[in-house]
């Protein structure tokens, strides 16, 4: 069917008409109509400031560093350094699961903060930080590192957290790592990912001793899987069955001990390109470790990914990989046979972070669903380059899409499902549109891997086909 670009452009134009001229000009550059042949940046401009006063879905650099990259590392203590709020809001709200005894091997379920008061703002918080680190080391002697996650005030009041970190590291003999991820830096979470990656490069990478006797030709690391609802575990299962040896997983259910020895692996397997491409590139440049992107959402993409990863290894791995595909394909076909008839042709609109808006498209397509628009909170140009190829021509692609645009777009595209975050969930449910949270898997998951697809398919079906949606209009209004 020919795509009516004019019609799609008209929809966008219509939505933008509510803005002032200046805001309209700005937002127009961020919303485009997909054309597989064109460049990503031609479709949407990205990674620039959000408009003040407009309800952007974006978070901050602290969220990117503490919440995304470092938060899931289970054997270190993340201090939310500054006032009380940031640590409170990011406490246990991301679903990055981790094994291990809480307080001994696993510090993920905690909220550690220096809880700045007015006097700390006025007189500086370095002394308090030093004292806090001493206390933590006494109370949690098995912690493998202490990470100082700066909140906004730190950079504004001129504290020297680097000096404190250095001093304390020599005193307590575990890594004490200062991060300048104040929330006002950059335009979104994305800079926080980058800052956290750089800090890992400078403080962690290459610091571990590799036991040469344990090395195998099949050693790999997973980068950019945060184990939301158990994603890392269902992904590792596949790698293991392929014959690969996962030495480290960054950073879901991960540890600083693994990060320290990642430079010994043969390949880095990168899932979330947006948040960990920096460290993948560093491993390549410094240690000559190649990296490959993969996509573990939905059987089509999983198969493609297994094959492209297997190609990097010998025949032994390639054979095993084909066996893995052969083993799971009939099971996946059963899932598709069960759900596809219930979901065929259903329209989806997505707004997620920096990877999923393109990576999940294939999983929806496996179920016969169609992604009519996709949007990112904090993607960059390289993400859009990858996105245009995944999406159908004529689909609407938007950058930093705010609530007004999202709602108006939904009013016009009439999706059967909206897939986004908690801030968006109840907006669309009030409109009577089925919804799934795609940051947290809506308290379900995993969604990665073969095991994950079955859960994904079930969840999408239950969202869309729940009998409860049929009750929205009362008898007397039907």
């Amino acid at each position, binding site marked *: 069917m020919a795509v009516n670009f004019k019609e799609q452009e008209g929809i966008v134009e219509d939505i933008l008409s509510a803005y002032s001229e200046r805001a309209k000009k700005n937002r127009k550059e961020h919303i485009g109509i997909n054309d597989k042949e064109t460049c990503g940046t031609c479709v949407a401009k990205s990674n620039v400031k959000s408009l*003040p006063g407009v309800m952007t879905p974006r978070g901050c650099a602290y969220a990117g560093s503490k919440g995304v990259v470092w938060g899931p590392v289970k054997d270190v203590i993340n201090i939310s350094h500054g006032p009380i709020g940031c640590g409170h809001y990011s406490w246990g709200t991301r679903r990055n699961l981790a094994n291990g005894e809480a307080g001994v091997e696993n510090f993920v379920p905690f909220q550690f903060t220096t809880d700045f008061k007015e006097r700390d703002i006025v007189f500086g918080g370095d002394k308090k930080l030093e004292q806090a680190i001493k206390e933590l080391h006494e109370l949690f002697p098995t912690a493998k590192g202490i990470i100082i996650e700066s909140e906004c005030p730190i950079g504004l009041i001129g504290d020297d957290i680097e000096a404190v970190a250095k001093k304390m590291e020599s005193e307590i003999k575990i890594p004490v790592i200062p991060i300048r991820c104040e929330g006002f830096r950059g335009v979104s979470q994305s800079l926080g990912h980058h800052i956290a990656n750089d800090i890992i490069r400078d403080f962690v990478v290459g610091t571990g001793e590799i036991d040469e006797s344990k090395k195998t030709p099949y050693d790999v690391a997973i980068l950019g899987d945060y184990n939301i609802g158990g994603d890392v575990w269902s992904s590792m299962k596949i790698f293991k069955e392929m014959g690969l040896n996962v030495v480290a997983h960054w950073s879901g259910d991960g540890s600083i001990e693994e990060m320290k020895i990642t430079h010994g692996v043969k390949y880095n397997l990168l899932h979330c390109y947006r948040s960990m491409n920096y460290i993948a590139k560093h491993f390549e440049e410094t240690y000559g470790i190649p990296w490959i992107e993969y996509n573990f959402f939905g059987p089509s993409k999983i198969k493609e990914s297994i094959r492209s990863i297997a190609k990097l290894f010998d025949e032994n791995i390639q054979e095993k990989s084909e066996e893995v595909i052969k083993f799971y394909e009939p099971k996946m076909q059963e899932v598709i046979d069960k759900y596809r008839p219930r979901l065929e042709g259903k329209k989806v609109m997505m707004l997620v972070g920096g990877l999923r808006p393109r990576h999940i498209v294939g999983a929806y397509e496996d179920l016969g669903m169609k992604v009519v628009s996709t949007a990112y909170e904090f993607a960059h140009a390289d993400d859009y380059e990858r996105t245009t190829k995944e999406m159908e021509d004529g689909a609407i692609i938007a950058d930093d899409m705010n609530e*007004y645009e999202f709602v108006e777009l939904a009013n016009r595209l009439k999706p059967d499902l909206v897939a986004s975050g908690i801030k968006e969930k109840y907006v669309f449910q*009030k409109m009577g549109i089925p919804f799934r949270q795609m940051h947290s898997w809506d308290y379900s998951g995993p969604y990665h891997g073969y095991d994950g697809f079955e859960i994904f398919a079930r969840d999408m079906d239950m969202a869309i086909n729940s009998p409860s949606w049929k009750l929205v209009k009362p008898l007397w209004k039907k």
Partner: protein
Amino acid sequence: MENEEVKKIKDWMNTEEYKEKNFSRKAIVINPERACQPLGAVLCAAGFENTMAFVHGSHGCVAYYRNSLSRHFREPFAAVSTSLTEDGAVFGGQANGFEGFKNASALYKPKMFAVSTTCMSEIIGDDLGSIVGSAREKGHLSENIFAPYANTPSFVGSHLEGYDSMLNAIIETLGKKSDAGKTDAINIIPGFDTTIGNINEVKRILKIFGINYLVLADYSNTLDSPLNGEYKMYPDGATKLEDVKSCVNNKATILLQKYSTKKTAAMLSEKFGQEARVVKSPIGINYTDEFLMTLSELSGKEVPKELEDERGKAIDSMTDAQQYIHGKKFAIFGDPDMLIGLTSYLLEMGGIPKYVLCSNGTEDFEKEIEALFASYSENQGEVYIDKDLWHLRSLIMTGPVDMLIGPSHGKFAAREAKVPHIRAGYPIFDRVNIHRYPIYGYSGVINLTTWIVNKFIDILDDTCDDAHFELLR
């Protein structure tokens, strides 16, 4: 790590020695049940007609407040920021403020902006009043849109002070003293109360009394809006701005929390000469009785028989079920006013509020709890202010309790201590609909009793041997 080593450390964490170490820390705070000021300000905004919460600061902060409030209420939560970035830190945030007002006015067409701050805008020294004033002068902010503003630095107090400051600013800015004298209506200020059921219960009581009333800030409908196929950014049922203007001329204001309304209470009496009566949060029989007496006194009406009958039914449920609570030990935590009410209720039931722990409590609060303990000599407990849930863990691992009551974050300590945890307060992220049920009033007494007692009975049924698995409980 080896299992034995892990167990050894874990066992050490459960000792008196560890508890002492834990209680002697001065700098690090671990698992505090306390959010920051702007969250309270933003919540307050949701209680007013067509009002947009407008936070002068980074958008990351606002994303956090919206996430947190949406998770608790399971509702949409609208709020905007001025998206301050590094330039703001260097040049100040005025330009962002201007553009923010302009964009938000065009898109969201509010009748009022409830303007608050974050740590960043406070530290860079932005003058909120002058930004709002200049925005009006330069035409970025229409004269038709109210814009009360409050300083809500995150490094002072907690969400309670933020709520207070915003409410104070809204009433002070909009309130207009009339020459016509006082009306017979009574204002109700719930305070930072995220139990929607409480606000509805208070309204129901006032209706039964036949008292004209006005709730400020009333988010009982905006944060519990019907699903009918239409999304409204400003759902119906919030406090009308016209009513805010005239609220200072109502006969009196009853404040149902003390620690989230101090500034507002003082402003009402000092600036507007209104009687501002702070009552104990009406949790349990005694405090509900006191609330009804206050209503009776202020309205000149007798307590209606309907409510007296409700009271009798609540007493009936309590006396029938008290055997399951009598002598049981509780650890309770959360915001101060709720804790005072829960302590009173547990004491009424013969329970022992062994630990009352408040991450944002003051010395005043401590004294109030101690006075309550003193009035029931047999059931002494301990009160802790400025302590966190890692302290609470040490307490319940060394001196066990039978149940925890408080917000969701307590679940980690409850699991370690292997005791049940009843959810109450803010935030509740892991149970559905709890916030829709009141813990206020006589209905609240029945709800609390139902949850606590049935939880104990469920555990008995789940853990007893076959011979004791009885039909009768």
